[in-house]
Each structure stands twice: as C-alpha cells, then as structure tokens.
C-alpha cells in the first residue's frame, strides 16, 4: 500500500498509523461575508465550532493522527486548537499543517505530498463534516480492496437520500453516479446541476483555475452541459463488457469523506493541474481508464453524515443535530469542549428536543418551543415565543419577541418586540427594538439593526464592505486594526446588560504560542518563525478563499461606529453622527441607527435555494421538473424530446407527502378512510409495532375520523388480505417492501394453498389486533360482509382486484377466521341467515360456503347436545 518511492518495508506497513487529513478550508466562498472574519470551521453549529464535530468523530473512530490542514485564518484555527483539549491529550495526535498559499484542494494535496508526512492509508475529510458513521467497515473494505489490487486507490463515502426533497433541504446539487453493482466500483461521477445551482457553483469555483487548466475543465463542462440540456445520460455500453449490472443512482449525497491510499497524493503531484477532488481528480481518474486506477464507494446505511457547505446545510444540519439524528453528537452529551465564564457545556435535554444549559435566564412567561438550544447566560424576556432556534451563550432577548428558526451566536442582543425568522445573526449583532428580521437574512459580526426597521428577506449584511474590482479602495478603508473584530469583541461597549460584555470572554485569545505545534512537521522549526510567517501571510489571506486579491476587513471606523450605535449612550451617538453618514451604511437594510453594508451575492447565486431559510416547496418541483416543458410540447417528437416522465416525477412526491390524497381529489370518504386505516396498519407492520401500540395508533385514527371499531376492523382485515398479494396501487411506495412480489395463481391448487398459508401467517401475527377491534357479533357480521365485498371487488374495493384472487378461497377464509377465533359461530350463522333472504345474485359466496356452514351447523348441534346433557 505504501507508495513505491517511499517503500519503507514491511515493518512499516504492519504498524500503519491511522491518519486523517482534515481540511480546515473548503476553498469556496459560500459563507462569505462571515468567513471574511472567521474561518468556517470555527463557525458555531449548535453552539459548538464545526471543527469540533469532525475532530470528535475522528477521535471516536480511533484515528491516531489528525493533520489539520490550514490555509485561510490559520492563526485562528491554531489558536482554537491550542486552547482546546486536543493538543493536551496524547491520542489522537492533532497537529496543524499550515500552508497559507494553497488556493485549492489540489494544491493542499501537493503540499502534503511534498512534505512527505503521510505514509499509509489516510482519511480525507473537510473540517465541516458532521457524522456519526463508523469508519471501521469502510476502512476495512478499502484496505481489503487495496491489498488485492493496488489500483484501488480511493473509497468515497456516500449517503443515500430517500426523498428527492432531502437534497434540496441540504442545499446539495444533484449528483449522478454509476456504480458496478457487485463491487461498488465507481464508474461515472457527475454533478448534475440544476440551472440555479450550476450558476452558484460557478460562482464558488475559482475562475483562474479553469482558465489555466483547460483540459480537465473542458471535459467536465462538456459533460455537464450535455446532461442538462437533454436530460438523458449517455453511458458507454462498454461498461457492460466487464460486468452485468450497472447501477445508476441519483439518490446519493457525497459526504466528502474519502479513504485514500497515499498514491492519491502522488497522483495530485503528477497531475499538477488537478484542483478539485471531484471535478478533477475523480473525473480524471474515471476518464483515464487505461491507467486502471479504481475508485470505490461505500454507501452508508442509516448512519448520519452531512457537510455544512452552505447556509442551507447549516440550517438543515443544525436541525438534525437538535433532533438527535447524529447521536452521540447531541448537545446534552456535552462532549464538546467549551471554555469561558460559564465553563464546560452543560446542556440538559427536555421534551421536544429542547436543550437548555444550566444557567439560563428565561422569563416564566416565555414560551420555548421545540428544537431549541439555549446557551448558558442567555436571557429571554417576558412573553417571548422562541422555537426551532439555537441561542448562543450570553444572548439577550427583550420582551415579546418571536424568534423562529434563527441562529443567534454568542452575545447577540435583541431588543423588545422583535420578530425574527430563519436568520443567522453572528456574534455581536445588536437588533433594535421593534425590528423585524425576515427569512434568509444573514447579519455578520457586529452588525447593528436600527429600531423598528424591517430587514428585507435574504439580505446579507456585514460591517465589511465588499470590494469589487471596479471600486478602488480609499485609504481609510484600508486602515484597519489588524487585531480585527474577532479579538476586539470583548472591548465592545456593554449593551444594556452587564453579561454582554463578558460574552466575548467565551472566545479564544487571538493567538497563543502554543498554537505552533511541535508535532507538525511544517511548524516544527520554531514558534517564532511560524508566527512571523503567519504575520506575513495574514495580510494577504482573508476569506474562506485566498484567491481574492483585495483585502476585506471591517474598517476600524465602521467597527467603532457600530459599537456606539449599538449602545445606549445618546451623546456618543450624536457625536459620531457625522462619521456615520460618511461611512455610508446600507440604511435600506439596517435602518436608521443601524450599522452594516450590503454584501451582494455573486451573480447566479440562488438565495432561495441556498439561504438559511427553508427553500419554498415549489422549488422542489423546479429542480426535478426541468424537462416538463419539452415533453408537454409534443408527443410527435417523442424520442427526440427525451423522457416524458417529468410530470409524474414532480407530482408524485407532493402527492405522497399529502398522504391519502393519492389518485386525485375526487376520492370518496370511504375510500380515503379505507386507505388511511390500511396505511396506518401497514405502518404498524413495517415498524414492527407491538400489538398494544398498534391498537393505540389505530384507535387514534378511529377517534379522529369518528368511526366505529367495526369500520377499522373491516379495513385492517382487508389490508391483511392484501398483504398476501402484490402491492396494490393505492399503497404508498414506502410500504411496498411488505408485500410479496408476485401473486400465486389462485385457480390452481398449489396457488390456493400458497395464498391460504400466506393469510394464515398474517392471521397468526395480527389476528389478536383484529379481534380487539371486533367488539360484538354485529361487528363480526360486518367483517364477513366486508370479506364478501372484497372478494367480489365491490364498493370501495372496486378498483382493487386483489380481492378476486381470494374469491375462490372464500369458504377457506371463513374457516380460517373461525378457527382463529376471529369470527364466532354465531356471527357466521347470523350472516348466513341474513343472506338467506338476499337475491340470488348475492348468494354467490353463501353458496360457496355451504359445505362449511353445513359442517358448522352439525358441530353446533353436537355441542348443544353435549350442553344439554351437561345440564
């Protein structure tokens, strides 16, 4: 496995140290302007820096050596680590590798290769990964493959989605993957962008790289365009020359967790034009088949893995964390290190996914809703309604505020009567009383919103001015305190409450020499030289990405003004009024008395798709419906126009989520009720509910729909019968797996026996449940009438032909019900008596069960004889 050039011998191989390379820079700009001031990996996610999740997860997986590769804001990351537990403990060894001049992942990999510090298999992750996956199986599979075939150089971890909307929720672009079904070898990998997403991705991608490295990018774009315009994916038939099955999947999300052989680094060095892992390395490896390098996939089952790669996923992952999907990474395990005046984290779980730290000051009249985390020292005023939000430490909220879906970082101050929904407010933000924060708003560090102002939707506000190439910098904008806002936050004037001033104490000191980690080969020389290199680089390295040549940093003046505006001191405000007007804050966004500049988004960035606010449901159709028009135009150009399936694809998820609404609006209530009972029952079957729980579920439905027990029993019974046959059309696909794939031929004897034994099994499993819904003899008679209807495909069962398969078995079913003590003799007799007077046409099933009835009568007479003799 060790690359040939470094062939250190067998003993080295035997004692391979499990290494992870954690990229603390994702080389994109999606979190700007927040990342202008602070690296993304230090962004708090449910009040814990993102980096901590990744580190904690790697440690959990017994990774021995973690190399944190820092580019932008390396100083802050090193400072954070120095302050954390990671450098204090022996295992895992966490060390930083600083390479501030890296502009892309490719350069980072080449730099790692040059440093020659990775000898064996390593895990490549970005520092924004939140996962609870067990790396063991994926690692073992990778190593097993690599031992067999040294060309199996990489294993990519992917996670299936089960709903197309899931991708939209995570702000992910569509991904198209072709795999060898048996070996899980990756054959094709293509990011298939929706038009909006494509534009956004182009914005995030550095232009310079594509200009320089035309070959690969040309390749990629060519594919991309073709895929998008025709909505047909061309697969070379030669893929089937070595395998029988090729699996094409659109339901996978790339977790960006990969397991790599050291050869991957070599390949990056060999192909100096590789920039991105996916667009260049993976695409290149797959297209250069003749080199024989192989990439495989590991597909997660049920484990959690997600990347926080834009604001959309920031929101989605936060909610997942609160809803405990990433267990053990939930607030109340308090595993994460947290310093500051309130000490280690102290969350406690309360019902409804509420997590409150030990010391919070909530008014008794404040209503705290579900999915909520509140940090220590937070104060929530009277009459507030707060839900689906994360409140950092020392957050202060005034009276009668409504906060929904918001992320308020440490020390945010909100006045009275503020309404805020689906917004991200960074540290030091102050919102004046009566203001409204609309969905999708991002307020970067220290922004002040004036009182009674309405911040429009999707506004992005920062104290930094975005520097566009056309506008040259004025001198005083260049004049900034190099310490930046990050460290000066503690010096912010206390806004109305004493504890706000201490909120800054929760943050790390700007730099400590401990950050220069002796174990890192790059920084092992001396702490001095390290810090000096930092110094020199820091002047040119801001932003998540380093490619931007201009310097962006809030001006000292703006910071000062914001601090004054946030405060209560009227004199001071009056003093600086002139300066403020000179600063030219974006009044339409922050209002009078507010501080902040508009941060325009890159062209083509779809605010609706990628903002912190949930995207409108209509977009879900948009993404998957791009070829609807093509086909609606004409059936004549059928084959040329490509698939006509879009309408269905778009309609169906909506219908499904609508529950019983399948098949259009005109369903009669009885059919709807039948389907509801059926689906509720199927859910109980699928979730393997205990009988008592199933009773509760069905009872709930019964009460909600104001029905009788017999009504429920009827349709539980028919659902049981249907479970013996292939899935009927009305059943939602998620329960399809409960049904057998084929129907026995009920006109042959074998088929009859097969069908009966299937039903017998159902009856054995759920007979008790059925009995609990049959309260009286009348109920049982009702059940028999239902069976008749079902077998005759009558009434609500008219559109469902499964019953007819049971028609020849009517008498046998009757007997099974009798034997299973679901239906008593009396019920059968009174059913038969009732039917005696029916028309001839309706006696069909009565006639079929004549033999059974006769036998029953005989047995009854015997019984009564016995009873008589007893008495």
């Amino acid at each position, binding site marked *: 496995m060790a690359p040939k050039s470094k062939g250190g011998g067998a003993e080295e191989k035997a004692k391979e140290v499990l290494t992870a390379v954690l990229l603390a820079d994702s080389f994109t700009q999606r979190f700007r302007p927040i990342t202008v001031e602070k690296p993304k990996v230090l962004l708090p996610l449910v009040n814990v820096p993102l980096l901590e999740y990744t580190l904690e997860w790697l440690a959990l997986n017994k990774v021995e050596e973690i190399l944190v590769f820092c580019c932008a804001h390396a100083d802050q990351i090193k400072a954070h680590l120095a302050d954390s537990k990671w450098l204090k403990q022996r295992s895992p060894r966490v060390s930083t590798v600083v390479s501030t001049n890296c502009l892309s992942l490719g350069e980072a990999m080449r730099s790692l290769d040059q440093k020659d510090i990775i000898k064996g298999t390593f895990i490549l992750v970005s520092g924004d990964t939140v996962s609870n996956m067990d790396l063991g199986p994926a690692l073992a599979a990778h190593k097993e493959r690599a031992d067999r075939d040294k060309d199996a150089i990489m294993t990519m971890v992917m996670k299936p989605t089960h709903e197309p909307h899931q991708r939209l929720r995570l702000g992910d672009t569509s991904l198209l993957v072709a795999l060898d079904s048996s070996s899980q070898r990756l054959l094709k990998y293509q990011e298939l962008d929706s038009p909006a997403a494509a534009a956004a991705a182009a914005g995030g991608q550095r232009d310079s790289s594509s200009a320089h490295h035309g070959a690969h990018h040309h390749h990629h774009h060519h594919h991309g365009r073709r895929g998008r315009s025709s909505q047909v994916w061309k697969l070379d038939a030669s893929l089937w020359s070595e395998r029988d099955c090729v699996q094409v999947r659109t339901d996978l999300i790339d977790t960006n967790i990969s397991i790599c052989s050291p050869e991957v680094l070599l390949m990056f060095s060999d192909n100096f034009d590789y920039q991105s892992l996916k667009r260049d390395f993976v695409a290149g490896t797959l297209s250069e088949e003749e080199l024989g390098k192989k990439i495989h996939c590991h597909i997660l089952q049920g484990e959690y893995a997600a990347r926080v790669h834009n604001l959309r996923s920031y929101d989605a992952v936060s909610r997942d964390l609160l809803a405990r999907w990433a267990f053990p990474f939930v607030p109340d395990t308090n595993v994460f290190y947290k310093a500051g005046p309130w000490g280690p984290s102290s969350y406690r779980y309360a019902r409804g996914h509420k997590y409150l730290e030990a010391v919070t000051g909530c008014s008794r009249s404040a209503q705290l809703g579900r999915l909520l985390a509140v940090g220590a020292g937070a104060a929530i005023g009277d009459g507030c309604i707060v839900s689906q939000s994360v409140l950092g430490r020392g957050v202060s909220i005034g009276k009668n505020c409504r906060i929904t879906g918001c992320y308020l970082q440490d020390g945010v101050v909100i006045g009275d009567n503020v309404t805020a929904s689906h917004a991200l407010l960074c540290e030091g933000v102050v919102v004046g009383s009566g203001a409204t924060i609309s969905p999708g708003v991002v307020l970067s560090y220290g922004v002040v919103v004036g009182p009674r102002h309405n911040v429009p939707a999707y506004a992005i506000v920062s104290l930094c001015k975005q520097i566009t190439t056309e506008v040259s910098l004025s001198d005083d904008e260049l004049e900034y305190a190099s310490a930046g806002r990050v460290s000066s936050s503690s010096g912010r004037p206390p806004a109305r409450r004493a504890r706000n001033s201490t909120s800054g104490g929760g943050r790390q000191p700007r730099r400590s020499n401990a950050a220069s980690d002796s174990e890192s080969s790059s920084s092992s020389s001396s702490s001095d030289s390290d810090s000096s290199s930092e110094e020199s680089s820091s002047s040119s390295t801001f932003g998540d990405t380093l490619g931007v040549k201009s310097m962006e940093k809030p001006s000292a003046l703006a910071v000062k003004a914001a601090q004054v505006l946030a405060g209560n001191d009227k004199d001071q405000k009056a003093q600086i009024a002139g300066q403020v007007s000179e600063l030219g804050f974006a009044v339409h966004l922050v209002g009078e008395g507010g501080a902040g500049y508009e941060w325009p988004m890159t062209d083509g960035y779809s605010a609706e798709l990628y903002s912190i606010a949930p995207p409108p449901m209509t977009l879900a159709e948009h993404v998957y419906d791009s070829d609807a028009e093509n086909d609606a135009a004409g059936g004549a150009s*059928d084959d040329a126009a490509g698939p006509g399936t879009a309408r269905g694809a778009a309609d169906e998820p909506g219908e499904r989520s609508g529950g019983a609404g399948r098949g259009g609006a005109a369903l009669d209530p009885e059919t709807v009720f039948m389907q509801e009972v059926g689906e509720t029952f199927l859910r109980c079957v699928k979730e393997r509910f205990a009988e008592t729980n199933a009773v509760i579920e069905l009872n709930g439905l019964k009460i909600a729909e104001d029905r009788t027990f017999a009504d429920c029993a009827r349709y539980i019974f028919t659902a049981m019968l249907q479970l013996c046959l292939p899935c009927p059309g009305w059943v939602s696909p998620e329960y399809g797996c409960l049904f057998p794939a084929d129907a026995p031929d009920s006109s042959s004897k074998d088929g009859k026996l097969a069908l009966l034994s299937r039903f017998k099994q159902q009856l054995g499993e759920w007979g008790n449940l059925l009995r609990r819904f049959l309260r009286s003899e009348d109920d049982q008679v009702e059940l028999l009438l239902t069976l008749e209807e079902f077998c005759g495909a009558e009434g609500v069962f008219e559109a469902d032909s499964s019953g007819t398969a049971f028609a020849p078995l009517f008498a046998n079913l009757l007997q099974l019900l009798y034997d299973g003590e679901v239906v008593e003799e009396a019920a059968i007799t009174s059913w038969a008596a009732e039917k005696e007077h029916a028309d001839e046409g309706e006696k069909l099933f009565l006639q079929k069960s004549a033999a059974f009835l006769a036998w029953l009568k005989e047995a009854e007479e015997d019984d009564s004889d016995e009873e008589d003799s007893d008495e």
Partner: protein
Amino acid sequence: MPGQDFQVVILAGGECKRLYPLTSAGTVKAMLPVGGRPLISYPLRNLAEAGIKSCIVVAIGEAVSSSMASYLAAQEAAGGVSCNVITVPEECGTADALRLVAGQVSAESLVVASGDILTDLPLRALVATHQITGALATVLVGKRKTSPTAETKPGKAPKGVDYLGLDPSRQLLLFAASSPEVLRDIQLPLAAVQAVGSVTLHSDLQDQHLYVLSRSVLKLLVAKPALSSLKLDFIPWLTRHQLKHSQPAAAAAAGGFAGRASAGGAAAGGATGSSFLLLSRQHSGGSFGSLTSAGSLTAAGMPAAAADGGDGSSGAAAGSGTGNSSAAAAGSGGAAGGQGSKAAAAAAAGSNDGDGEGRGAAAQPPMPGDGFMALSHSGSAAASSRAGRVGVYLVPEGHYCARVNTVQAYGDVNREVAAADTALHLTGMSVSKYDNVVPPSVSLGTKATVGPWCIVGEDCVIGDKSSVKRTVMGRNCKLGANVKLISCVLMDGVSIADGSHVQNSIICSGAAVQERCTLKDCQVGPGFVVAQASEHKAETLAKT
C-alpha cells in the same frame, strides 16, 4: 369482473430471417420442430394448462398462416386451444401486428406472447400480479444462462444484449433498450432514475417477449403508429413515458372511485343492508368458473377440519358466553386507555417526524423533505408501486423460460427440452428408464446406443455401432453404421451415412450427410447434401 378478465394474443411471427438456414425452403418459424413438436405448440400448451380456451394467433404473412392451419386445427380438435388466426401483411413489426388486432380485444388485460416462447410459468399468476398491482404493462423478464461478459472483450460493447433498468425492489421496469446488434451508448433518461433514486441496468436479463398490457396501453399503441416492434420500440417508449401516461390511468381510477362515492357513502352511512346492494352487480365472463373448481378444494378440506374441530369447537362454544363479555370488558378498557393515550399518541406522532414541528404556526414555511431523516433511517430503500407503471415479472427460480429466436437458441432449447431435469415436461413426453425418449417404431442396429437426454422421432433407423448423445431427432431419420451424433438437432427425414461424425450441429429436413463426414458447429439447410468425406467447422451449409 376484473380478476381474471383477459385475452391472449400469440404472435406467431413470420419466416424469421434470423433463423436462416433453418427457415429457408418454406419452413416458418412457428412450425420449426422443437423436441419433435412444432414451436407454436409450446405456448398453446401453456395456455391450455392455464385453462384458457381460446386465443388470437397473429401470423405475419400468408405463408405462415397457411402452414400453421392444419396443425392448429388438429390440436383444437384434440381438445386444445381454439385459435383465431389473423394474418397481417409481411412487412408488419410485432407492434404493427398487434395494432391490427387491437379491435378484437375487449378484455381489460391483454397477454401478448411471442410464439417462440417455451415456459412453464403459470400464466394466471402473471395476469393476477399485473391486475393487482395495477401496472400499465407487466413484462416477463428472465435471466440469461450465461453472462454477456463471457463473450465480450473488455472495453467493447456486448452484442445482442437487452439493457433493462430495474428499480431496487426489482418490480419496476424503468428503462429498456435492446438491439440485435451492438448498442454503443445507453441513453438513460434522468427523470426515470430520479423517480426512484436508483436504477440498476442489467445486461444479464432478457425481455422474454411476454407482456401483459392494460387496455389503456393498447390504446396508446394504436395511437403511436410509428412504433413498429414491441420489444425494440414500444416497450422502450412505454418505459420512458410511463410516468406521464400513468396520470390518465390514475385519473380514470379516481373517476371509478368517484363513481362509487355515493354507494360507498351509503354503505358507510348506515345499515348493513345497503352494502348488499353492491353485490347485485353483474359478473362477467368465466372467471367465476374458477370458483366452482375451488369448491371441490373447499369440500375436500372440510371433513378433516370437521374431524379435529369436534373438541375444539365445543370448547369454544362453551366459553362463548363469558368470552363475549370479557372481550367487551377488555375492549372498553382498551377504549378508555385509547382515549387517555390519544394525546400521548398524537404527541408521539408529532415528535416522530423530526423537525416537522409547528407547521401550524404562521411564520414557518414547511421544509422540503421535512422530517426526512426519519425516512432515511427507516431502513429499506423505498419500494415502488407498480400502479400505472411498467412492472417486471421475473421468472422465478425453478421455472423454465426460453425463446427460440436465434439459431444458437434453437439448438440450446432443443437440448434442454430433451433433458429430463430441465424442460422435458414442456413436451408432455415421458422418459424411458434410460432418461431418453425412444418410441417403439425406432429400429436400432446392433451395438447402437442412444444416450440419456435424447429424443428420437418415430420411424427412425439407427445403424449398427452408431452412437447418439444429447441429440433430438425428427421422424424418419436414417443413421448409417458407425455414426456419431453429439449435441445435434436433426429435423425430419435427415439421413447420415456411415462413419460420419456430427457434433453440435443442426441439420434441417431432408438434408443428407454422406459417408465419413465430420461436422462441428454447423447448420445444414433443408435438402442440402454434404458431400462425402468432407470436413466442416462452424459453417452454414445451405442451398443458395
């Protein structure tokens, strides 16, 4: 009655150039002998076994219908299936042919089978599956015996392969493309994949050319005259368009529901009596005929049940009084419990769906895929409903299904039909103690041997010291002395002279192989004479 309302169309095909030289000299494909019986007899026998009394047989070209006529009449006279033969012009594709007979189809479902299919699948099970799932069309799919990769060089596209795209539950056909030649590119519509998330494209599965079509699909077929072949054009087209066309079907179903709404409502509303009314509907067709046959099964089962029911039922009856009341008590207790726990249940349901909380609250737009993690943690991949889609029926393990559509397949199927452990049961013949079929009219020379898994036709003569292994011979074949046949198919009236060795070859009617020839992997056309002492390997020998 929807249950078993279906009609069957058998596409007997035309002369079939792909089977050259077997079909030269006026032999039509449908009448090619397989295991000593005409090919068309196999699907007919399958129908007869399923209790189907009549079917439509479509012949492409007059030649086909006239050469089948006498056989079809004979088998019907012998209690077989009554065949309504319809002749369509020679240039018709399979879809064209079906279009021409569409007017004669009145049933809800239509089974379309190729006349060259040999299978022991219960046809009614296939139809029942189709009808219960509510699929637009159900396609019978079988697994190839050998993987196409065995015959393909790495990096080259395999030849003559069906590419079938199935969903993870293997119940939906989402993509179909096939070509008798090489397909360079597979053009997969993305919407088909997006609909289910994952499609597996198989090259090791074959479309067996047996389809169950719903009436609505037949209408589509009629409306699309440009689609000429069922397998190559129509089924691929239908797979591409299934989601769109499922909409009208769904609407129709909804209409059906709506039509019943009043009756259903009445039934729900009140007395049990009203639901009786629903039974007065007329049942159409012979599907209930099967009910009478079921009666015998029921009756047969009854005495046994009566026997052991004696004690059990007395116990049940004795306990019935108290049982009733206690059940009621438990029930009401349960009801009270139900009431009490309803709030809890509602709360549980609420917390189940992840972050779906508070949708009622004004300022909260619903999240796409809200509570989606619940979905993705619920285990198995989403199975797909076949309703309104193109469904797949995979030939189950243990069933035989093959088609005679290539020369290679003709040889293979003949050998399999002769093999007692594979498909001999399809012929209805029974084997001797030597595992072969040798009628008494065959004359065997001294020291002549007929190995196991051979079928020898009436009146054959096998010369001294000849040996026949794994071979199917037609009537009136003459083998000289010292002839060796291995894995061969001989049609009627073939003569093979002394000392010839023939292996893995097909020799058509009236052909002759003269003395001391060696043939391997050859096809000898009808009436062709192979000159003496010649050697041939992998050649087609036929009159030009």
